[in-house]
């Protein structure tokens, strides 16, 4: 890694940490809220610019399109999360999403920085990745993952604004346990079978309890107008993420057909992407055709977030193999 690239990546990481704390503070200091939100947004913009430059620099250093391993995809993920948040903030004026978006980006930077040196180094491509399809197939997928994350996070805020605090806490704990499973799977040698149980068990039990707890409403909290806004933001993220995911899956099929002679081979990662696609297709059908409450839809978007996490990071870290093991380093 060149010094320039290192400096840019570090800048992006540090500024995303800063913007996270400023956004958090903005929720605490009511009378300085506007100023703090403005500072937070500018810091996040700076982080976005820095990570954009870092990705470009890495591309120049590597003399190839810089999206070939897990570390590089994390940079892209952070880039997409911040970019999508900035676009949403401009279109909707959503503020509370700011700290969650910068938290997501900084977690990705942190995760990336903990990866072994071999991931940080620029390595030559394996034969399977030498193709122009790489930059057609992969970026839409990373962008869709980022949008689905933001969609799920908006779901959390929707729950808060609708006064579904108990449900919100359970869902947040569920996602935290799932993240824990991924982190343990990546950085420790804990038996993957246990981590799979942790991920799947926590998701299943946690989300069922969250659905049950929707009945408990804390009337003193939240703001129904904002609840409606975040419901719309969540839907918007998913409505844009869905074409990106579809495009990514289909171009993956075209590439696979070109390279392996079949556009679908039930490879675990393909299957996971299909599961994610089906879950969001169900979400869209739920929204368009049925009287399903915004809070239920928020929880469905959080289920989607868990599946996205599984598809993107859980896949390698929890020991599911297959043809898409480019992110694997163990």
């Amino acid at each position, binding site marked *: 890694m060149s010094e320039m690239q290192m400096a840019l990546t570090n800048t992006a990481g540090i500024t995303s940490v800063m913007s996270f704390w400023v956004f958090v503070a903005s929720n605490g200091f009511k009378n300085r809220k506007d100023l703090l939100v403005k500072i937070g947004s500018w810091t996040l913009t700076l982080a976005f610019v820095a990570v954009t430059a870092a990705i470009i620099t890495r591309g120049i250093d590597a003399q190839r399109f810089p999206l070939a391993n897990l570390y590089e995809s994390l940079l892209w993920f952070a880039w997409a999360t911040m970019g999508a948040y900035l676009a949403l903030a401009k*279109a*909707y004026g959503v503020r509370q999403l700011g700290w969650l978006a910068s938290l997501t980006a900084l977690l990705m930077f942190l995760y990336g920085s903990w990866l072994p040196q071999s991931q940080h180094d620029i*390595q*030559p*491509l*394996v*034969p*399977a990745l*030498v*193709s122009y*399809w790489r930059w057609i197939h992969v970026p839409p997928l990373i962008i869709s993952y980022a949008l689905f994350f933001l969609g799920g996070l908006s779901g959390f805020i929707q729950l808060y604004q609708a*006064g579904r605090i108990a449900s919100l806490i359970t869902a947040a704990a569920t996602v935290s346990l799932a993240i824990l499973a991924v982190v343990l799977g990546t950085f420790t040698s804990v038996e993957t079978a246990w981590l*799979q149980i942790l991920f799947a068990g926590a998701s299943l039990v946690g989300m069922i309890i969250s659905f049950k707890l929707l009945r408990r*409403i804390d009337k003193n909290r939240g703001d*129904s107008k904002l*609840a*409606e806004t975040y*419901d*719309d933001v969540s*839907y*918007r993220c998913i*409505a844009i993420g*869905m*074409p990106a995911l*579809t*495009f990514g899956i*289909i171009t993956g099929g*075209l590439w696979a*057909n*070109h390279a*392996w*002679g*079949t*556009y679908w*081979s*039930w*490879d*675990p990662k393909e*299957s*996971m992407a*299909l*599961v994610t696609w*089906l*879950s969001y*297709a*169900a979400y*869209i*059908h*739920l929204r*368009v*055709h049925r*009287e*399903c*409450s*915004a*809070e239920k*839809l928020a929880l469905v978007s959080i289920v989607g977030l868990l599946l996205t996490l599984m598809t993107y990071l859980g896949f390698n870290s929890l020991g*599911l*193999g*297959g043809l898409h093991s480019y992110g694997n380093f163990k």
Partner: protein
Amino acid sequence: MNQESEKIYDPKTQSSLKNALASVQLTIFLMSLTALTVLIGAWCPQESASGKEKVIEQFGADTAKLLTQFGITDIYHSPFFLSLIAMLTVNMIACSFLRVFPRIKLLQKPLPFLSGKDIGKLPINTSVELKGNDQSALTALAVRLSARGFKVATSGDKLLAEYGRFGRLAATVTHIGLLTLLVGVTITSWTGFSGFQPVLLNSHLDFSQSEHSKLWVGKLPTWTVRVDATHREDYPTGEPKQWFSKLTVLDTQGKEIKTQEISVNNPLSYDGVDIYQSSWGLDHIFLNFNGKEKRLDLQPMGKLYAAFLPLDQNSVMIFSVRADGIIKVFAKRPDWEAPRQLGEITKDKPAKLGPVTISLIRVMPVTGLQYKCDPGLPITYVAFAFIIVGVLMAAIPHRHVWVSLETGSKKEGATGNENKTDDMAPSKILYFGGRSVKAKVGFERLIKTLESQMASEFGIPKVEISEAQPTEKLNAGHTNESSAQKKKEHVLAGSSADSNAKDAQGDS
């Protein structure tokens, strides 16, 4: 179920079987069940992809047996999964023809222009009291809406603008794509085939001898393919960069028909069959030991290949072969910590190890050839195009804006402005409002922006945006798109916009 589909498809007039098949609840249920099944398939190694051994290795023999019994190790071919897909297909066909496709008709229906009173009942509406007394405000609003991509129609003092109409066709286009995909996949799975064979240099790929998929209606080709040359290209670091194989197609009489060099991502196509470079390796070496020829089989060891030749009970000779044919000779004895290098053999330079001279006769590479015949592919590609276009269209919000320029005091209008007195001279009021399927917040902001622009340019400011259904949200749980649509369809379908707008109010 929204009003729109009821208009087109009324469950009351249909048989209960038809209702069950075309039910969206069934769609959601089947989708969730399919997702769960595929999830299990992603978790458990599949016999068809990674072999039975992998399952046993991961779960142990007993659990593997149990998993096999339940069909989990070959879940995508299990009767359960196949019938799930069949049900989803039937459901999709029923929904497409009964619910989705008939909606195209709705788009052809013209919408009525609305009066200020009706505009006041739209989900998002506002009004601006004008300073002047002319139509310039209406024209300006029309220009602004056009600039934002709205299609504007005017009739006297009334205006109707629509955005993203073709976005309403998203479901239709996506469903056509999915149905086409099913056709393509069915054609391929009935008439196509695929397979794999590792082929040694100068040997033939014979389709009937290779490991291939089960044939239904299709037939394997009788022609064969000869591997004339094959090599590997490396990066300077020794990592493989690309594999190449020069292939010649031969007919049944052995006549050469076509010659082509293939590589990963660059297949040979002949007679509807594509042949792909899918793997590469070194199979064995022929060495000459003091004039005696010996074949040694190679095993892949990281970047290299290795052959082992036991010398006696304790010591073994190791030949480490690089892809470019350079061989390093090692010996290993139990009392040595690591193997010791004894010498190096290349094509032109034998190694002298004491009394023994070892020279290389040849290295035999093996190229992994994958082939497939996919007659449904063109249809599948058309389906892909439809699906991509369909889901892209789904992100487009469908929006309507109604505007009416009327004479009168604001009190009767959409927004009651209590500060105004009745004895004022009648002035012109610009009523406008609308609704948006998807991205409602963005639409609200648009209306607010237009309102402030209109007010600052043409009007007396100090008006507030009002909403038709602001407070019932929490109690009713949620008012989502379908209820917004409900309102819309009432206005849409009716002859008198007035009574319909009333309906819409009572409805929520």
